[in-house]
C-alpha cells in the first residue's frame, strides 16, 4: 500500500494546505471547478479526434492526410470554380452583347467595368500605370488624344493586334524614319522643324527657326502627321498640335525624336487573353474618360 501524505486543513477556507512552504508561506490545495476539469478532458478528446480527422503529422514523404480529406488547396480550387460558375451567366450575356448594349445595361456595365479593371491591373498597368495615366513613352489612356482612335472598334483592334507586335501580322505599324541619324535631314533642319512642331501647339519656340521649319515639315513630315500636324489616325501619325506629348514636349526632346525616334511596342493580346477578357478591357478603357 502506498504511503499517503496527510494534508493539514486550513481552518478559514476548509482547503487542504500543501506541505511545501516558502518563507513560511503555505499554499492552499484548492481543487479546480468541475466544469474546468471537464473542459480540459473534452479538449484532450477533441485533440485526439482532430489528429485522426485532419492533416496533422509530418511523415518522411508527406503528411498524414486525415480521414476527412481536408485540403486548403482543394478548397481554394473549389471556391474559384464556384466563383467562375457564379459569373458564368453574366459572362454569357456579356459575350452576346455589343458595346452599346453593355452600356445600356447597368448590371452588365458594372460587371464589365469590374472585370476590366482587374484585367487592366494584371496586364496593362505595367506600362500604362495602374490609374491608366500612362508614362513617358506609354500613352495616357485617360485623355482625349488617341493615336489610332478611341472608339470601341478601334480600341478592340488595337488590343487584339497590338502595336508593332512581332507576333501578329495584322498589328498596327507606324515607324518614323530616323531623319537625322540616317542623314535624311541636317542637324539645322531637324532643329528648325522641331521649332515648327512646337509652335503648332503654342509651345515656346524660336519664331525664325519655326518659319524655316515649315517647309521641312511639309516635305518630310506632313505625309504621316498631316498638314499642320493635325495627326493621321489611319497611319497612327500622332497629333502634334495639342498639349499632349508621348516623349516630352520641349524642343530638345522633340528634336531628339526626329533625329532618332523611339518606338513603343504593345503586345498583341488576342490569343493571350480570351475574347471576353478583351471585351471587358475595351469597355473599361473606353470608360476612363477618353472614349470616343
Amino acid at each position: 500500500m502506498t504511503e499517503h501524505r496527510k494534508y493539514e486543513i486550513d481552518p478559514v477556507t476548509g482547503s487542504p494546505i500543501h506541505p511545501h512552504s516558502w518563507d513560511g508561506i503555505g499554499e492552499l490545495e484548492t481543487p479546480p471547478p468541475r466544469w474546468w476539469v471537464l473542459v480540459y478532458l473534452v479538449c484532450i478528446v477533441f485533440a485526439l479526434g482532430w489528429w485522426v480527422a485532419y492533416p496533422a503529422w509530418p511523415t518522411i514523404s508527406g503528411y498524414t492526410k486525415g480521414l476527412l480529406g481536408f485540403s486548403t488547396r482543394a478548397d481554394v480550387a473549389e471556391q474559384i470554380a464556384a466563383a467562375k460558375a457564379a459569373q458564368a451567366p453574366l459572362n454569357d450575356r456579356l459575350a452576346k452583347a455589343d458595346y452599346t448594349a453593355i452600356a445600356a445595361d447597368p448590371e452588365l456595365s458594372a460587371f464589365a467595368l469590374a472585370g476590366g479593371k482587374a484585367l487592366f491591373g494584371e496586364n496593362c498597368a505595367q506600362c500604362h500605370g495602374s490609374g491608366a495615366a500612362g508614362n513617358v513613352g506609354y500613352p495616357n489612356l485617360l485623355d482625349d488624344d488617341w493615336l489610332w482612335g478611341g472608339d470601341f472598334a478601334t480600341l478592340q483592334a488595337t488590343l487584339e493586334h497590338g502595336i508593332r507586335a512581332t507576333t501578329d501580322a495584322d498589328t498596327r505599324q507606324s515607324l518614323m524614319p530616323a531623319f537625322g541619324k540616317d542623314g535624311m535631314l541636317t542637324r539645322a533642319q531637324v532643329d528648325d522643324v522641331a521649332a515648327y512642331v512646337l509652335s503648332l501647339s503654342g509651345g515656346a519656340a524660336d519664331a525664325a527657326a519655326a518659319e524655316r521649319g515649315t517647309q521641312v515639315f511639309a516635305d518630310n513630315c506632313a505625309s504621316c502627321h498631316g498638314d499642320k500636324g493635325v495627326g493621321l489616325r489611319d497611319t497612327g501619325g500622332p497629333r502634334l498640335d495639342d498639349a499632349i506629348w508621348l516623349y516630352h514636349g520641349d524642343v530638345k526632346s522633340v528634336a531628339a525624336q526626329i533625329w532618332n525616334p523611339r518606338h513603343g511596342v504593345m503586345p498583341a493580346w488576342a490569343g493571350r487573353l480570351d475574347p471576353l477578357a478583351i471585351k471587358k478591357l475595351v469597355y473599361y478603357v473606353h470608360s476612363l474618360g477618353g472614349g470616343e
Partner: protein
Amino acid sequence: MTSRTPATIDEADIPVWSHRPKVMPKKVKGPIRNLKWLVMAVLLGIYWGVPWLRFDRGPFAPDQAVLIDLPGRKAYFLWFEIWPQEIYILAGLLIVAAIGLFFATAMLGRVWCGYACPQTVWTDLFMLVERWIEGDRAQRMKLDRAPFSVSKLGKRAAKYLSWALIGAMTGGAWILYFNDAPTVVPALFTGSAGFAVYATVAFLTASTYLMAGVARENVCTFMCPYARFQSAMFDKDTLVVSYHPARGEKRGKHKAGESWDGRGHCIDCRQCVEVCPTGIDIRDGLQMSCISCGLCVDACNTIMDRLSLPHGLIAYDTERNLELAAAGKPRVWRFLRLRTIGYGLVFTLAFAGVLYALIARAPLEASVLADRNPLFVRLSNGDFRNGYTLKLLNKSNEPQQVAITLDGLAGGELSILSHENEASPLIDLAPDTVAAVRVFVRLPAAAWGGAPLDYGFTIHDAARGLTLTAPARFEGPQK
C-alpha cells in the same frame, strides 16, 4: 462549517475537482414576487411578440416593425431606418443604455439584476418549470438524493426537455429579429431556412439551457462583469436589500407567547436563505452575490406577519438608514444627489442626442471620391480634367431622381459618364440603395491658377425639394 472539518486530510482524499453546492430556492409569495412575475410576463411578451408586429413601409422595404436586415445592411425600427454608416446611432443607443443602467443603479441599486436582466428572467422561468415538474425545494432535494428510478428519470427528462424547448423558443425568437418572421418560421420547420438561421437557433438553445438551467446564480456571481463594478455606482443612499441587524439581533428561536424583550426579531427560520436564488444569507450584510431581487424581503415579511411583527426586518433600504435605525433615528430618503442628478442629466442629453440624430436624418446623402491616380488629366487642348465617383445614397423607400450641377467652380464643365449625351441628365436612384456615379469635371487651362480649388457638387432632388452640396476639390499641376 469550518468547525466540523477535520484537522487533516489524506492526500488521496483531495478531490480532483471541487463541487459547488446546488442552490435550490424555495417558492415564495408576496408583492415583490408578484411584481417580478409581472415584469417577466411583460419582458418575455415583448421578446416573443415584437417580431410579429407589421409596419407598412411601402413596396420597396420590409413590412416588419423591428427588423435587422443583415444581407440588406439595414436596420428598421418603426419609423426609423439605420444604415451601416449610421451605426454611430447604435453606439449612441448603447451609451444611453449604459448611462440609464448607471442612473438606475445609483437610484435603486441592482434593480436591473433583480428584475430585468435576461439571466434573471430566464432563470426564473426555468425555475418555474422546474417547480411545476419536480415540486418545491424539499421535494427537489429529496428527488436529488433519491436513487435512480423510473419516476426520477421521467421527471428529469420532462424537466430537461421543457428547458430545451424554452431554449429553442428563445433562439427561435432571436432570429425573427433578423428575418421576416412569417416567412422564416415555416422555413425553419420545413428545413429550408439557411445555415446561419439553424446555427443561431442551435447556439442560443444551447446557451439558454446552459445559462438559465445549469449555470444560474454562477453567472451572476462569477461571470457577470456588472456585478463586479456596480459597487462603484453605489453610495450610502442607494437602495439595497438589507437585513436590519439592529432590529433582528440577537436572533434565535422563539416560541409563541414568549416576550420579545431582550432579543431580536429574527427567529432564525432561514426562510430568507432558502428562497434566495443565489444561495446567500442576506443577514451577513450586503454582498456581491446579492442580485437585489427582493425575494428574501417577501419571505421574511411573511414570517413577520405570522409573528404579528411589523414588516421590514429585511427591506429595500439604504446604508444611511441602517445606521440611522441603529442609532434610533428616523429614516431619510435622499434620491436627489450629485450622483443621481449627474447621471440623470447625462442620460437625458445622450438620449436627446440620439433622438435628434434619428429624426434629423436626411433621406438623401452624397459623398465624393476623387480619383487619386492620377489626380488630374491634361486634355489635348490643354484643359485639365478631374474624375470623381459620386456616391449618392437614397435612404428613402421610393425611387428618386436627382440632377447634379457644379457649385462654385468658375469655368468648370461637368459630364456624367453614363449620361454623356444628355443635355440636363437626371440620375435614377433606386430605393434604399447607394448609386455610384462616375463624373468628369473639366476646367480650361486659363481658369487654372496653380492651386487646388474647393467647390461643390450640388445634388438636387426636384420631386422632394431637397438640395445638398457635397464638397469637392479640383486638382491640377502646381505652377
